[in-house]
C-alpha cells in the first residue's frame, strides 16, 4: 500500500499512518505557477470576449470593435491597476499575456469568418 498526495496538500493523518506502518508517500508533480494562477485569467477573458461576440451575433461592426476593445482594456486595466494596489491583487505580466491570448483567440476567428459592416 502506498499514498499519492499533491504537493502542499498532504493530509497529516496520511503522513502519520505512513510513518507508523512504513508506507511510502509519493508526491505528485506540482502544477506550474502559470497554470495555477494565469490560466484562470486567460479563461476569464475568453469567457468575456465570447459573451461579447455572442451579444453582437458574430458580426464585426464598429460598435462591436469598440465594445470588444473596451472589454480587453477593462481586463488589462484590472491587472495593471494591481501594480499600485488600486485594485487588490498581485500584478503578474503572465496574467496580461494570458488575457491577451484569451481575448485574441475568439477575436481572430470572428474577424476571419465575418466581413466588416459599419452597423450591426
Amino acid at each position: 500500500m502506498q499514498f499519492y498526495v499533491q504537493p502542499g496538500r498532504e493530509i497529516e493523518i496520511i503522513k502519520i499512518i505512513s510513518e507508523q506502518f512504513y508506507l511510502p508517500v509519493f508526491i505528485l508533480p506540482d502544477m506550474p505557477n502559470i497554470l495555477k494562477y494565469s490560466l484562470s485569467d486567460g479563461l476569464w477573458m475568453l469567457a468575456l470576449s465570447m459573451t461579447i461576440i455572442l451579444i453582437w451575433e458574430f458580426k464585426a461592426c464598429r460598435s462591436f470593435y469598440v465594445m470588444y476593445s473596451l472589454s480587453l482594456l477593462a481586463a488589462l486595466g484590472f491587472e495593471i491597476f494591481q501594480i499600485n494596489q488600486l485594485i487588490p491583487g498581485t500584478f503578474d505580466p503572465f496574467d496580461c499575456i494570458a488575457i491577451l491570448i484569451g481575448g485574441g483567440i475568439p477575436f481572430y476567428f470572428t474577424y476571419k469568418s465575418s466581413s466588416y459592416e459599419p452597423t450591426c
Partner: protein
Amino acid sequence: MNQPVKSVASFVVILMFLLFGLASELQDQAFGPGNKYKEELCGELASVITYEPNITINIFDHKNKEPLEGVKFLVNIYYYKGNIKFDSASEMMVCEKKLSGSSTFYPISDENGLAIVRSNPYLFNLRMDMVKVLIYITDSQEIFGKQIFFRNHQNTSDIEVTFAVLEQGLL
C-alpha cells in the same frame, strides 16, 4: 437586438465580469495577502540548492556490540519548503512546512552492520525550509526508529546514524 441594446448588454457583461474578478481577488485576500503574494514572499533562495543526503546507518547488537548483518530498513526522506500562511488563531502570517518531495529506500545492512543510502539529488530552486529523514528497522515485534532534521540549508552529506538494538533475535 438593435445596436444600442447590444451596447448596453455588452457594457453590463463587462461590468459583471469585472465585479466577479474583483470578488475573486477579495476572497483570495480575505485573510491577508493572496496565494500568489504569499508564495513570492516566503524564504526565497538566492541560488539553487542541491540536497543529496548521503546517510550511513550503523547497526550493532546492544549486548555484545557485534555488527548485525541483513537487517532491513525503511528510510523515508521528506523535503519541505517554506510556505507563508495566515494563522487565523494568532491573526499573523506564519511560515508553514509544505511537503514538496519524498524518497523511499529499503537498504539492508552488510556484514559490517552498515547500510548506506544515497538519495537522488533534490533541487530547491525557490524556497527550502527543512529536510526530514525517518529511518526504521522493519521488525514485526518492535520498532526501532530515528528521525533526523536538516534546516537552514545545512550540508546533508555523510550523515551517520547508529542503531543500538536490544537483541539480535528480535530482528
